[in-house]
């Protein structure tokens, strides 16, 4: 009971400023925490898939490993190659890192835990995520390294191609809900989740999302056996970790969008204070999808670049178009 009063007090605080500051702090903390947890889980799961224990040294079962790694990266010198374009080289990691926080503004963690419910929430979040490609292009170009440039060009081609099936499959959901508002889409799924009604769209979205975040088997921009480390070859220290954090946060958003649009968002068996504790269901679903991303990464070899684009243009886009058409016809009827 006391807690409810506390939350009410927080909600009724008049100065908008306090809310903004608190939100910003929470978002930044969440970005880092998510990267830490996800990084740890990725390494731990990779270890288990590979018949080894994974990180074990720092803390019980190595849970502090990522923190130690972060401190190590902070302590490293940030080297700007002599021939690199220094302003672009500095700008790229920031450009990758900063927008990811903005996407949190529209994510409904539970029915009351949402910063702003924009009317165009879905478009907003997709637009912000698309900025990542720009950051990668700048990183690859600014490095003045052929491998980086290869990675950057691949990333842009990949993002441009896969954004189409991704948007088309999300559009079929929007056709059904008649709203771009994230909250509205979650509420529209109260009897049945969209994953039941739109399985094809969900599948296409998830595959495209995997490609969008450059995860194996679509990790061509950083295909280490071909391009050493791709666009972030030349980056060291904290700037490298900015890319790293941006990648993990983008993964989070790809899965979060999947949960919001297809898996009913925060809905689940009722808990006390459901309007806040819905976040538990939300995060559980998101991390379950993230686990699938990790699972796929450590199980499959990488596709070749032409195969990647062929797959998109020849299969994903036609299928998503047909799906959209069928959805439109059914909705109209």
């Amino acid at each position: 009971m006391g807690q409810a009063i506390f939350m009410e007090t927080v909600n009724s605080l008049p100065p908008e400023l306090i809310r903004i500051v608190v939100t910003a702090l929470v978002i930044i903390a969440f970005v880092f925490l998510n990267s830490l947890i996800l990084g740890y889980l990725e390494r731990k799961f990779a270890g288990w898939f590979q018949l080894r224990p994974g990180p074990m040294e720092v803390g019980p079962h190595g849970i502090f490993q990522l923190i130690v790694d972060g401190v190590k990266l902070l302590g490293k010198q940030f080297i700007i190659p002599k021939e690199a374009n220094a302003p672009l080289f500095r700008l790229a990691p920031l450009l990758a890192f900063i927008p990811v926080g903005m996407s949190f503004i529209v994510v409904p963690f539970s029915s009351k835990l949402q910063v702003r419910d924009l009317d165009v929430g879905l478009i907003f979040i997709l637009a912000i995520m698309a900025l990542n490609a720009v950051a990668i292009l700048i990183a690859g170009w600014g490095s003045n390294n052929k491998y980086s440039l290869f990675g950057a060009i691949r990333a842009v081609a990949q993002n441009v191609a896969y954004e189409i099936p991704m948007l088309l499959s999300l559009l079929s959901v929007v056709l059904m809900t008649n709203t771009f508002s994230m909250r509205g889409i979650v509420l529209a799924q109260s009897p049945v989740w969209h994953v039941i009604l739109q399985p094809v769209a969900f599948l296409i979205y998830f595959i495209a999302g995997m490609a969008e975040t450059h995860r194996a088997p679509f990790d061509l921009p950083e295909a280490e056996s071909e391009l050493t480390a791709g666009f972030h070859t030349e980056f060291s220290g904290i700037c490298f970790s900015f890319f790293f954090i941006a990648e993990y946060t983008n993964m989070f958003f790809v899965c979060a969008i999947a949960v919001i649009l297809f898996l009913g968002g925060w809905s689940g068996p009722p808990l006390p204070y459901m309007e806040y504790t819905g976040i538990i269901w939300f995060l559980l679903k998101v991390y379950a999808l993230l686990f699938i991303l990790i699972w796929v990464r450590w199980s499959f070899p990488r596709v070749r670049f032409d195969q990647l684009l062929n797959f998109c243009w020849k299969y994903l886009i036609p299928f998503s178009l047909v799906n959209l058409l069928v959805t439109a016809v059914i909705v109209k009827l």
Partner: protein
Amino acid sequence: MTLGTKNQDRHSFYLNMGPQHPSTHGVLRVLLEMEGEYILEPEPVIGYGHRMQEKIGESLTWNAFMPNTARIDYLSALMYNHGYVGLIERMTGIEAPRRAEYIRVITSELNRIASHLLWLGAFLLDLGAFTPIMYTFDDREQILDILEDVTGSRLTYCYYRVGGVSRDVDGTFVEGTRAFIRRLRSRFPMYDDLVTNNIIFIKRVKDIAQFTPDMAMRYGATGPILRSTGIGYDIRRNEPYSVYPEFDFDIPVGTTGDCMDVYLVRVREMEQSLRIIEQALDSLPEGPCMTKVPRRLKLPQGDASFSVEAARGELSYYLVSDGSDVPYRLKIRPPSFSNLSLLPELCRNMLLSDLVMALGALDLVIPEIDR
């Protein structure tokens, strides 16, 4: 063809792949003239790990050079041992006891499996599949443990001696090897599920980097990449040495010579090696494992050659002797040298990703090429 002269009429640029690059597996540098992601002209640049082993070979007595043989190709060290002791035995007419020959065959084949397992993992790592290398290393580790017990080292063995092997094997070795055979046989279906039938894997390796028999002949290619073209040439069968004629085994061959066939040939070779080991263990003769060899043995005047089937192909030693105990000239012909020299022809107009596959299929050990 010439290093550093661009094709004037094309918008090309140069890309240095290596000497530090994850998929050149050592200090190999491939200078690529590229147009976009397509390779116009690949030019391997070697010699970064050159140690002048041939000069060392003609500065030491033949006996003192033994340990160096293991350092030329560290992944199939026992076969390099085998070729060298075979050469000296052939020249001097010394015969190793049959038990020693059996032990040599068993350990050599174990070493071949270990090398192929490492290749399998590394090849898939080049493909971007991180997990299989851990599984193959797990299997390979068993071999290293078995070999460590009898040879005393895990990688750069110096186990064979002229006239036998340095120490006898015991029941533990036989038991351990049998257990390993059972284990690896049970693992092959898993590798098939995980790798051979994986759609992405098939799409990546099928019809990529096709070798032809004619190309192999022009370049002197040997080993699995030759057999993948359908030519069943294996020194163990075509120019038998040691006690290989006594065993029943097949020479796996491919049909098209693409990376898929190279993969299948290597995997089946592991199965055949298991068969050889099993037969050798079953009929392991009793007796000494070493004959008496004079301490300072002079090599007869003349020049002799000895070839063995190393993990990557034909390893040939050629020794010229002036009648002393120090070779006058020792030529080592590693298989990868010739195998790599066909890379420019193989990879012209190929995608960068496919070049990585081709390099992986060649199974390069750069110190072996550089010597």
